[in-house]
């Protein structure tokens, strides 16, 4: 496996504009001769499908949902960053670039992050033009708020529903192109495999989730925008259907998978209430603008929060990180919550929770102002917990949320398989070891609207591959393998439900490869996962038939991939003998418990190559070179 990042030469400010000029173009009349497959209709996928179709490419767009608008981008609450500097508070492209590199704990590629900061300006403009109803001031101008890891106000938002509004924007652009016939949309079709011809990605195999039909589709290039893999932990803030299958099948076909151990544990989620729990609900990080996080100073203090006097409370983020306080980055805020709870000072059932308290903000601004900012979040909290957060502090606890790792891509967003491009959360490129709040929406839309439309032309103009069709052996073989796997899952008829395996794997991953990891635990997980996998293939029980709606069967296929993927994740976490961002190895910490990086040995992206089922994958390294930001220990104190 060769990792050529294709970072353009020249000063960082002009790399992207020079590169756009250097990329070969496909002339307008020729674009309609090319077909591009886009898998996924979240921000990255919908934006890419719409933009490519507008350019004139023929686009085949796939989603496993009943509608493109259901993609999980919709659930993003807080906002989207852009270096507009509308607040006149010192923001700039360079500052957003710097904050993102630093926030990512110096494990992202400089050139990609700079490009992201540059195009952040265009994203806001594009979304406004589409009619995204961002929050506005009485002047009619756009409003901003602050987010973790930044000291400027650069986050654009639409109440607590920013992801929904941005996705509806991208969905409407996509719908327009579907209506015009330029995009052929396939709903309820899940990608099951990638098809390679002459080493190039030329198509996919899908299963129709309503009829069970297995089909294949051919194209000149494939874009995966299939999201992240937090559901490897079973409980996460991801939607129930989010999975790693598309990315993992591409990995098994030869795409390198980068930094799978970089997982983000979001600090503000509603704590687990019992064994029945099926998912965890996020409370937007924007709440930390006005909420103060605390635990009792005394261990095992069971008094209701209102009876704990001010001087017996520990506002631990404000105490430990006075300059960023409650707006410290996510990895730091999460670990601090875990420390407080490990120390016996957690609150609520089981002691796995901390308070997020709005009393000060309500007395300063009034209940009405707080309701205008966070009303829907407060309502959601009350529906789930039965408690009124205007009166009683919220209880929150960290939960798996976002995955910075993903398929390795070069500067053009192309994986190690020629023609296979990877966008949004599914790739590894921009967030290093920790993503800052309000940056996921930015990256998804940047990749979809403003990067892939340029770089895919460069690939198509140079690749010059011959025509393919789905009657070719490569396609037929991939269809057959998928059919066999489905038939096998249905035929096992064992004793355990797919969910029970998912839960078992998830608990193990959370315990051994979650917020904190150590060598011994990771080795135990690497021993244990193959045993769970083996039992799965002997004892899973998938009822119903394959030629109909069958959610058990869908889940079983996804769990089967998680059972292989989890092992690779642990290998990655075990090999990285340092702590950085979301990857916290207990052996590597400073005296006051902060992550301790090892830049001499680990300033690289770790890229894994598949070598066969149950075999340790091969590690490849892309060295990370920092020419514009000085490597330093992150400090938010």
């Amino acid at each position, binding site marked *: 496996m060769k990792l050529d990042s294709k970072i353009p030469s020249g000063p960082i400010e002009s790399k992207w504009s020079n590169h756009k000029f250097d990329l070969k173009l496909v002339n307008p009349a020729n674009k309609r001769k090319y077909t591009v497959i886009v898998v996924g209709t979240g921000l990255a996928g919908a934006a890419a499908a*719409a933009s490519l179709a*507008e350019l004139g490419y023929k686009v085949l767009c796939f989603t496993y*949902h*009943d*509608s*493109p608008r*259901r993609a*999980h981008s*919709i*659930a993003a609450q807080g906002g989207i960053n852009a270096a*507009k500097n*509308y607040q006149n508070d010192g923001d700039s492209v360079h500052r957003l670039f710097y904050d993102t590199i630093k926030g990512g704990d110096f494990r992202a590629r400089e050139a990609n992050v700079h490009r992201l900061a540059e195009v952040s300006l265009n994203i806001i*403009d*594009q*979304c*406004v*033009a*589409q*009619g995204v*109803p*961002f929050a*506005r*001031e*009485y002047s009619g101008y756009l409003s901003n708020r602050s987010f973790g890891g930044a000291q400027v106000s650069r986050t654009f938002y*639409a109440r607590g529903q920013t*992801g*929904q509004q941005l996705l*509806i924007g991208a*969905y*409407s*652009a996509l*719908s*327009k192109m*579907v*209506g015009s016939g330029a995009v052929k949309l396939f709903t309820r079709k899940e990608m099951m495999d990638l098809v390679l011809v002459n080493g190039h990605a030329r198509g996919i195999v899908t299963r129709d989730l*309503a009829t069970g039909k297995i089909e294949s589709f051919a194209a000149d290039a494939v874009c995966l925008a299939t999201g992240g893999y937090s559901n490897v932990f079973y409980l996460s803030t991801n*939607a*129930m*259907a989010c999975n790693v299958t598309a990315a993992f099948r591409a990995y098994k076909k030869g795409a390198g998978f980068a930094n799978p151990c970089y997982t983000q544990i979001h600090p503000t989620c509603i704590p687990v*209430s*019992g064994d*029945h*729990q*099926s*998912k965890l609900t*996020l409370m937007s990080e924007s709440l930390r603008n006005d909420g103060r996080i605390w635990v009792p100073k005394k261990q095992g203090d069971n008094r209701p929060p209102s009876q704990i006097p001010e001087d017996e409370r520990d506002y631990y983020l404000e105490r430990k990180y006075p300059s960023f306080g409650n707006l410290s980055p996510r990895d730091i805020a999460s670990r601090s919550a875990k420390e407080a709870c490990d120390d016996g000072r957690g609150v609520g059932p089981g002691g796995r929770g901390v308070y997020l308290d709005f009393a000060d903000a309500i007395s300063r601004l009034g209940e009405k102002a707080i309701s205008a900012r966070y009303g829907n979040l407060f*309502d959601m909290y009350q*529906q789930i917990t*039965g408690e009124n957060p205007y009166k009683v502090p919220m209880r929150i606890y960290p939960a798996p949320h976002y995955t910075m790792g993903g398929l390795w891509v070069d500067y053009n967003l192309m994986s190690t398989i020629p023609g296979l491009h990877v966008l949004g959360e599914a790739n590894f490129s921009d967030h290093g070891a920790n993503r800052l709040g309000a940056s996921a929406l930015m990256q998804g839309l940047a990749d979809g*609207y403003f990067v892939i*439309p340029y770089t895919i032309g460069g690939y198509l103009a140079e690749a010059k591959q011959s025509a393919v069709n789905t009657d070719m052996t490569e396609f037929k073989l991939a269809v057959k393998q998928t059919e066999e796997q489905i038939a096998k899952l249905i035929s096992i008829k064992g004793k355990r*439900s797919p*969910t*029970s395996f998912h839960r078992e794997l998830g608990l193990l991953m959370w315990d051994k490869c979650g917020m904190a990891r150590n060598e011994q635990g990771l080795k135990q997980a690497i021993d244990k996962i193959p045993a769970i996998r083996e039992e799965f293939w002997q004892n899973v*029980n998938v*009822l*119903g038939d394959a030629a*109909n*709606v069958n959610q*058990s069967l869908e889940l079983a296929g996804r769990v089967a991939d998680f059972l292989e993927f989890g092992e690779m994740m642990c290998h990655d976490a075990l090999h990285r003998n340092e702590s950085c961002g979301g990857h916290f190895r207990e052996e590597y910490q400073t005296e006051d418990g902060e992550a301790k990086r090892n830049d001499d040995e680990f300033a690289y992206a770790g890229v894994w190559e598949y070598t066969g089922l149950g075999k340790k994958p091969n590690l490849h390294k892309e060295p990370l070179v920092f020419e514009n930001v000085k490597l330093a220990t992150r400090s938010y104190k």
Partner: protein
Amino acid sequence: MNLTLHIWRQENTTAEGRFSTYRVEEISPDMSFLEMLDVLNERLINKGEVPVEFEHDCREGICGTCSLMINGVPHGPEKGTTTCQLHMRKFKDGDEITIEPWRAKAFPVLKDLVVDRSAFDRIIQKGGYISANTGNAPDGNAIPIPKPDADWAFEAAACIGCGACVAACKNASASLFVAAKVTHLGLLPQGQPERYLRVTAMVEQMDQEGFGSCTNTYDCEGACPKQISVRNIARMNRDYLKAKIMGN
């Protein structure tokens, strides 16, 4: 708590459906309604019975995937809430609960409680957008938008496309869904150039899909988990009339 569930089971679109009755025991009041159904399904699988198919995804009340008619009310008894955000503490021990799919000609049942809502997508594809190709946009602050307009547009844009309005309506009308989009885009300065073409195209597609007409019973607003107002329908009708008079 212990509950008796009467659930609609239907093999596929053409098969005849029927209610089946299930007992679920030891349900915690902290469970969501869908987690209660998860418990039922795990027990069915363990007994070797085919689980009940129902749609759901984000379980945070925003994706619009979940869609159950609970005791005859879309998304159940709690106002302004999706099924996934409905919690079992709203029910009592010993309750009997009837669970059905959305029922509308334009939303055919695929299996059990799963219906096909792609008619909504086809309506959007006819005009539920502002044609702003990528790269066309002026600076975001070049288009100031009065806050009241922006706020109303936002409230209309909060629609999650779940279809509860259709399920609640005795005519199975999609007027609230269509009106929400027409209003969201029609209130914004960016949406003006296509305003009348949009409303005409969307309303015509709505009719073609087999949705009924609006007779102002307001059940849609009552069922809407995002509490979208029927005043959007009045606004849509005005725009539609103007479009017809102007000859769009």
